[in-house]
């Protein structure tokens, strides 16, 4: 069995290779090794930009709220509910309805005070914490809360979470894998820029129907046109895990002012760290990140000012800012503090936090604006916000989504390009071998394509088309699995991975010339069936949501149809293109095969 690498020419000694050639090898291998993990990360992360909207769709029991509601009405419902059910909590959080979520999401929790830390055992502290924590979805108009009638589901949040912890493995393991893949991807981006000689000359170049060249052009277009986004997303992805990638820098503060790193990184909450560390972390939060701490509880009961007064005051100061949530610390205490977290608008402070006294309704903090963090802190916070698309209105969110898909296209086209290159090298070798063995008649065995190439080809189609099919299966499972079934949330995730695994089986057993088209048709069918599954299992289908103006539901269903259409279109075009039919030399007479319109 002859090997399929560069046959008779001896490999170039490493030292003799040019810089670009070496970087090309690095680019190939640093991106090929993590390529399918990166594709998974990109797809789930891109979907994650709409995780709130997806979770809305996956919980159809939560009613559509047709009219926006007044703050006063919402807060009256919320504070009444919290007063009855969360009296022992030290923190209440009430989110306001927005264009992304029509209902109010409320959660509450309990901090352990230093005195309790000393007098109670850890088990008692844990019990105190658990029994005073919880969350609920509140209808802002009626004040009704949603309980067990809402189906248990991971929602879009689970897909978003998979983006950085993967699935079916301990969190730390998934994170380590994603971290390593991110570093390799960054190396891939930098080497890609280095090896792309004609980066400006090729800026608008696309050569269709030229096989490898066309794929290279697609790879170049999807990466170069979105390069700022790709660099930002990868670097910021690494920044999330600064403590893991650069642990030694955290010992600088240890050496200079006794910051306890292990204590900081292993504690569950700020209340668990030792007092000296607490003071230092407080300085970190306030001076570097501009987070004003809530005043401590006075232990004196007091009535609270109407929360709607606080939000009206805020809105009158910053009419362009959008309030995300209101957080009450130590409610019904004299020192109760209300913190408004907001999405900055024009003219409002960039740090989206405003502090008020909940007892009196007065603003806390100086009148010139909220406390600003330091330059370094702001840079870090900005980079991380850019990654998550925080502060993003719907239009920008769609732009993030499209550039994220371009990133996935960059990865996919790179994978296909590698496989095609190797396949082409095999075919060239096969021709050459056929010629020489015909001449010499030595009857040697045909060269076989490398197992690595076959593996990559199967993984390519199974991942590039199979993963979207898996995501479609996740949405279908949400509608088809019975609502009351135990453990349905993890079953939905299982459905996703089972569907994905089955596409890999298909990739192995079906002929390679047809598998791409077949899987794309399957993806088209899967996505097209989602709105139908919605119609058959709920009353929130397009026939109801469009007349109602329920864009949460309608938008999702229409997007599914749109994705199905795109898969169908691509499947149709790939079916009519045959790689083994070459265009005839006299193109004026012969129609090119890729043009169905003629």
């Amino acid at each position, binding site marked *: 069995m002859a090997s399929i690498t560069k046959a008779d020419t001896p490999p170039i000694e490493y030292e003799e290779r040019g810089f670009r050639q070496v970087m090309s090898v690095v680019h190939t291998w640093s991106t090929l090794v993590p390529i399918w993990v990166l594709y998974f990360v990109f797809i789930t992360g891109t979907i994650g930009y709409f995780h709130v909207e997806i979770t809305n769709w996956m919980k159809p029991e939560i009613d559509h709220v047709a009219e926006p509601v007044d703050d006063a009405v919402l807060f009256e419902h919320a504070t009444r509910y919290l007063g009855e059910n969360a009296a022992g909590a030290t923190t209440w959080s009430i989110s306001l309805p927005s264009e992304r979520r029509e209902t109010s999401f409320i959660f509450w929790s309990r901090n352990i005070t230093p005195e309790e830390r000393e007098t109670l055992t850890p088990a008692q502290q844990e019990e105190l914490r658990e029994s005073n924590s919880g969350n609920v979805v509140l209808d802002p108009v009626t004040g009704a809360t949603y309980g067990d009638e809402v189906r248990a589901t991971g929602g879009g949040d689970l897909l978003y979470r998979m983006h950085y912890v993967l699935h079916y493995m301990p969190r730390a393991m998934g994170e380590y894998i994603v971290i390593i893949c991110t570093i390799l991807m960054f190396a891939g981006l930098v080497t890609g820029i280095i090896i792309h000689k004609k980066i400006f*000359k090729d*800026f*608008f*170049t*696309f*050569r*269709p129907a030229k096989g490898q060249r066309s794929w290279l*052009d697609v790879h170049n*277009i*999807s990466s170069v*046109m*979105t390069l*700022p*986004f790709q660099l930002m997303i990868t670097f910021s992805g690494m920044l999330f895990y600064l403590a893991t990638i650069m642990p030694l820098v955290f010992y600088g503060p240890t050496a200079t002012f006794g910051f306890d790193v292990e204590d900081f990184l292993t504690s569950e909450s700020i209340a668990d760290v030792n007092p000296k560390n607490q003071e230092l972390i407080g300085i970190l939060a306030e001076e570097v990140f501009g987070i004003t701490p809530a005043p401590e509880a006075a232990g004196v009961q007091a009535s609270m000012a109407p929360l709607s007064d606080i939000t009206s005051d805020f809105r009158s100061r910053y009419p362009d800012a959008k309030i995300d949530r209101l957080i009450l610390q130590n409610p019904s205490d004299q020192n109760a503090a209300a913190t408004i977290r907001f999405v900055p608008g*024009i003219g409002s402070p*960039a740090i989206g936090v405003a502090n008020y006294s909940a007892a009196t309704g007065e603003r806390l903090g100086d009148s010139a604006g909220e406390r600003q963090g330091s330059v370094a802190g702001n840079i870090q916070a900005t980079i991380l916000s*850019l990654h998550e698309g925080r*502060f993003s209105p719907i*239009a*920008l969110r769609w*732009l*993030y989504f*499209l*550039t994220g898909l*371009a990133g996935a296209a960059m990865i996919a086209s790179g994978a296909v390009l590698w496989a095609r290159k190797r396949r082409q090298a095999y075919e060239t070798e096969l021709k050459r071998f056929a010629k020489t063995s015909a001449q010499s008649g030595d009857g040697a065995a045909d060269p076989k394509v490398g197992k690595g190439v076959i593996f990559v080809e199967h993984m390519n189609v199974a991942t590039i088309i199979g993963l979207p099919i898996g995501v479609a299966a996740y949405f279908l499972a949400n509608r088809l699995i019975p609502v009351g079934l135990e453990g349905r949330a993890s079953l939905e995730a299982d459905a996703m991975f089972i569907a994905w695994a089955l596409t890999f089986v298909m990739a192995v057993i079906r002929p390679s010339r047809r598998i791409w088209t077949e899987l794309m048709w399957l993806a088209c069918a899967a996505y097209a069936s989602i709105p139908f599954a919605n119609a058959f299992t709920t009353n929130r289908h397009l026939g109801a949501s469009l007349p109602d103006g329920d864009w949460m539901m309608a938008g999702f269903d229409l997007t599914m149809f749109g994705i199905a259409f795109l898969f169908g279109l691509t499947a149709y075009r790939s079916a009519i293109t045959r790689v083994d039919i070459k265009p005839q030399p006299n*193109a*004026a007479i012969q129609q*090119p095969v*890729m*043009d169905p*319109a003629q």
Partner: protein
Amino acid sequence: MTLFVVFFLIVGASACLCLSFDKHYKKLMGKALKSPIKAKLRVGGYTVLLASLVTGTVENGWLGLVYWFGLFSLATAPLPFIVAYLDQRFRLSERAD
């Protein structure tokens, strides 16, 4: 509203800059690109691009810059495919010069 203006400015700038390449000009216009026209297209394209950046950021600040990068990708990415499609559909590169 501003975003639409920014988007169309970028589309225009990209079209100018695309045409300023010899091979694309030849393909789409059917004749060779002369230096004065090339210079005008380049200068015009970059000016309009700068104008789009200014338009985007003067009203929206830093958020405008983020929008600009996103709109830039959205506007420029389809252009190579459009050029290729136009060439194929109208057989532009096969016209007699």
